[in-house]
């Protein structure tokens, strides 16, 4: 927010148009990282629905969802988290400054999600019984990161 304002003032002084603003409001990075989490949630939802018995188990669909989780876990993170795109500096994000202050911890928690995604990939086609425990494992890695690095919503 502050940064936003300072940038606006600077651009106004230079007589720059609003198009240049897109560079500093990080909207592309926010869309990309928030979108990746939505892809994760949607695919986890497919697996969770089967584990809960809300939808019928289907090995192929389960495998595709788990493969997607693994694919997302391989997306490189650093470019989506530029310095200054935390929730104390700009609006529209729940990313805590701790992501930059304790970046090793953040990346290691991302790595833990990748490990759990591989576990669910290995279990997905093996029947509905195997889904529950690995769902719990994946969910634990989501919450472990949200615990420290994501603020509650507004």
């Amino acid at each position: 927010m502050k940064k936003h304002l300072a940038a606006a003032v600077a651009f106004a002084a230079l007589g720059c148009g609003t198009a240049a603003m897109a560079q500093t409001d990080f909207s592309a990075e926010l869309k990309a990282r928030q979108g990746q989490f939505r892809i994760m949630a949607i695919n986890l939802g497919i697996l969770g629905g089967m584990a809960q018995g809300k939808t019928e188990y289907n090995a192929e669909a389960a495998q595709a969802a788990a493969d997607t989780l693994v694919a997302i876990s391989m997306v490189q993170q650093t470019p989506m988290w530029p310095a200054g795109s935390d929730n104390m500096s700009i609006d529209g994000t729940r990313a805590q400054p701790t992501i930059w202050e304790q970046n090793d911890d953040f990346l290691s928690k991302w790595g833990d999600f990748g490990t759990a995604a591989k576990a669910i990939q290995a279990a997905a086609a093996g029947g509905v019984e195997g889904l529950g425990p690995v769902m719990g494992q994946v969910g634990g890695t989501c919450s472990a990161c949200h615990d420290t690095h994501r603020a509650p919503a507004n």
Partner: protein
Amino acid sequence: MRRGLVLGALGIAAIAAAGFGVTSATPIDSSPLAGLAGDPAKGEIVFIASGCASCHAAPDTEGDAKLVLAGGQRFASDFGTFIAPNISSDPEAGIGAWSLEDFASAVKKGVSPDGQHYYPAFPYTAYSLMSDQDVVDLWAFWQTLPADATPSQPHEVGFPFNIRRSVGVWKLLYMTDDWVMAEAATPEIELGRYLVEALAHCGECHTPRDALGGLDRSAWLAGAPNPTGRGTIPSLTPEDLTWGPIEIAYYLETGFTPDFDSAGGHMVAVVENFAKLPASDREAVAAYLKALP
């Protein structure tokens, strides 16, 4: 208007306090505890539901290390930073030398063995509704917990809040033996009420506070600003939390919302605890939330 009322009451209470010494800390009446035998297995359930370890374990511990109640976690508030003390069974650094009466006075009345008031960062305003049997069971479980010699650290709280006696006035205003939900329609809702209002102290985070840091019970569980940074702790009233009871129970077990987002912030510790409780407890909490006005 509300604030005026509270401050007015505070003034009256302060005068009464000065005049009659009502802010002195009185320990618990121990007679109801006397005949009760403690069951450590039941005490463990009380321990988990009440989240004692979530605050009193050392910072960043996981798994069984959470049973070492060495203290050290910091709790920021408008009044300063409180640091959870060592409550392990160490007789010097912890509470190993305490009696059951000392323990019950602390948990249910917020009174220390040397007759001081505790700060309400220790959520005894909720625990005051804990049943005597549960306190006795909890203490029995305590005897099975490990000792740790890490000394407790002083709170970082400035004047006038560093005067414990002033907490006596605060207690007059905010300590109550009444349930927020006066009538529980079914035994399940009654169990949920006990878990939410007494043990798991959900209101401490999900209910907004007034100027003096007391819970605004007229906006019970209606959501509150996040005390440690940005964002809002969500409302749990049926109007705002539209999830069904099965979805609420599933969230408490797994941390997954209906659209498979995953819980974050201080709610993670609550989910970690509730995952270990019987399914019927999670269902009772859901039934209670659905019965809120």
